[in-house]
């Protein structure tokens, strides 16, 4: 649909896909210093869906929205490198320690201020793996939501969405405004665009400008400003943010090391395959 405004929800996460032995600290929290900070993978799938709509229809804008510390501005730059029009970084000490409820509260307020027609996010983040934030944002906005999306296009003013479910696919139609969360099975996000990288590489938030010591920044090379919003910009109630706004309590964290116990090595010989089939039938794993 022409002229719609899309907000993409994105999160900067530690890259938990290549976890080494020092990934967790002794107190059970994530050791962020050894894990590179990356664009949450399924949020990249979400961004790709937004960019495809932008390519297909006239006058569509894509705004990236992320909440996190100052360095999460990198997520906005990553989005700009790939074709997003602009971005907003929600950053404030008051946001620190927010669980999914407090996070979705802040995001919903920011979305309301941006007033888009469509919000697209990844299904879940690879650090918390809750898959709660997208649906909670929808509830707080009072908008319908469609999860596990893989592909979408407009028919008239309805968004037609293909969902990836456990045992197949389902196609649904939904009116705007709408929140969609995208599955990792959706097409991968496009690569950075050369020209956009050169254009936006010095784009900075005001806070970044104050803390960075790069010569380029000092020389005024950074002419593009990224938007930063704090608590007041979205009119949030501080009580509902951070630790005070987060009912989730972590009781205990346990490190689990998976071991190959009682494992068996089979060759591809007929005899081995047959014995495996027999065993699986016997314990009713199959059949």
């Amino acid at each position, binding site marked *: 649909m022409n002229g719609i405004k899309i907000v993409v929800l994105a999160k900067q996460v530690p890259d938990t896909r290549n976890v080494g032995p020092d990934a967790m600290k002794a107190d059970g929290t994530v050791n962020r210093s050894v894990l590179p900070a990356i664009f949450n993978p399924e949020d990249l799938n979400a961004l790709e869906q937004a960019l495809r709509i932008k390519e297909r229809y006239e006058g569509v804008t894509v705004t990236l929205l992320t909440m996190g510390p100052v360095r999460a501005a990198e997520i906005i730059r990553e989005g700009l490198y790939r074709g997003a029009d602009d971005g907003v970084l929600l950053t404030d000490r008051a946001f620190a320690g927010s669980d999914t409820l407090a996070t979705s509260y802040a995001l919903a307020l920011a979305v309301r201020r941006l007033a888009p027609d469509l919000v697209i996010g990844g299904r879940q983040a690879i650090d918390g793996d809750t898959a709660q934030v997208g649906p909670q944002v929808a509830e707080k906005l009072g908008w319908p939501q469609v999860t596990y999306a893989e592909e979408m296009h407009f028919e008239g003013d309805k968004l037609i969405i293909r969902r990836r479910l456990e045992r197949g696919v389902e196609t649904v139609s939904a009116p705007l405004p709408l929140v969609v969360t995208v599955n990792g099975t959706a097409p991968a996000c*496009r*690569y*950075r*665009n*050369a*020209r*956009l*990288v*050169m*254009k936006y*590489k010095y784009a900075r938030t005001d806070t970044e400008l104050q803390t960075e010591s790069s010569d*380029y920044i000092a*020389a005024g*090379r950074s002419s593009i400003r990224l938007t930063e919003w704090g608590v007041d910009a979205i009119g949030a109630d501080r009580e509902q943010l951070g630790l005070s706004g987060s009912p989730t309590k972590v009781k205990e964290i346990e490190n689990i090391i998976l071991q190959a116990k009682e494992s068996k090595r089979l060759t591809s010989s007929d005899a081995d395959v047959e014995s495996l089939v027999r065993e699986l039938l016997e314990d009713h794993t199959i059949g």
Partner: protein
Amino acid sequence: MANFYTDNKDLRFHLRHPAMEKIVRLKEMDYRDKEKYDYAPHDFEDAMDNYDKVLEIIGAICAEVIAPNAEDVDLEGPTVTGGHVTYARGTRENHETLTKAGVIGMNFPRQYDGLNFPMVPYVMAAELVSRADAGFANIWGLQDCGETILEFASDEIKQEFLPRFNKGATASMDLTEPDAGSDLQAVQLKAHYDEERGVWLLNGVKRFITNGDAEISLVLARSEEGTSDGRGLSLFIYDRADGGVIVRRIENKMGIKGSPTCELAFRNVPVKLIGERRLGLIKYVMSLMNGARLGVGAQSVGIAQAAYEEARKYASERKQFGKTIDQFPAVYEILTLMKVRLAAMRSLLYETARFVDTYKAWSFIAAERQLTKEERDDLKINTRLADIYTPMVKLVSSEWCNSIAYDAVQIHGGAGFIKDFPVERLYRDARITSIYEGTSQLQVVAAIRGVTTGGYLNQIREYEKRELRPELDHLKKELVSLTDDYEKRVAQVVSAGNNELTDFHARRLVEMAANIVMGYLLLDDAQRDACRTSLAELFIPLAVSENRVRSEYIDSFEEKLLGLYKIG
């Protein structure tokens, strides 16, 4: 995340060559675009950072998209239906991914939606794409045609065609015909001017045309009736949207199977003239070919890198007699020599790219203002060096690419002969590099001028003057004595006054010069980075022994033996 740019330290090393400061300043005309384009660099460091970041994008696409597609593309290949080519699925994905990344038209000026990159990072990108899939590298690399349009076409044609590259337009250069291969003067495709329609029309057949069904084609045709040599040929530009060219068939090739090699039939095809009539072959195609030859140089280095990686990996995993085979002298010698030659040919490739960059940048500046005498001299020197280094790099890197691919198969043993390993494809892909865009034998014909006019020798003596760390002195001494010997042999051959004898020894002499040049370039590299000293230490003794064989043969050769060679 796999990345062919960041996993190979050599590339950043060559990108950061000290000569780049001048090249980038000239190319960017003192960074004047910064006010006009939001993606133009503000200064040298900014530009270098741009090249680095863009190469990183290309390196990721090569490792994550193009290389994984290469096997399927090789199997599936392109097809022809209804006179037009359909690329293999992987080829389409590769092209679309690179187009979206905005890396087509890399060295065009920004006014034509290019990135205004110098040749050095562009050649690097070509090397990366070739390492991923040499066949696809042709489709991507034919953006070179844009350079010819840029240099010689009218503003109107430039405006019409150049911005289309960045949006993903493909290109081809239609030169060869059934009876005009190495000898392009024999081109017959007929161009006549239709007075009524006010348009040039082409009729005839082209053969062996890489990517012949491209959206934009540069076509060499005979515009002057009654002529039979190169002076009757002009260069035209064809827009596929105008129609008229039919792909009759595509060749079933040994390698680079993803790249469609077409036979084309032209029937009253409307085209536009590039530049002036009669200059098609003698000026424009010569320039086009020089770019293409440098491209094949990059392609050869890319394939050789891929072959080396495969060989190294296999040798470090394959166990025989209780240990991995890379622990046996017979194998580690091969592996190390592959690496050393790869380093030498890469240094030669980027040295050549820098000469090309420098002369091209001066030529563009000269179109705007008069050059000073020093600037003109610099233009002249670099033009000459580019002219003699281009055939040298094409000759050496394509031949060595073949032998490195051969060695890589050898290291795989029986497994290398089976299609299960990528090295088999690399071996087939390598084979074309010493054939197309001028065979090795024709590169020697182009390069021999550099021998007889003293072009190589002068440049070698320039290298000789450079200051080196004392611990490199003994290596330099070897090269000085090789140079003296080379000079003596050249004099010996030339003074015989027999052109046939010169042609007979030409390849030997060009290769002797090339070994010395690469020896000095590796010394330069070692001077910049002490970690690279071992490469020079390994290469130079090889150069000494290889040159000695050639030198002794030339010295003891009797002219009357030439007659015996004609018997075969």
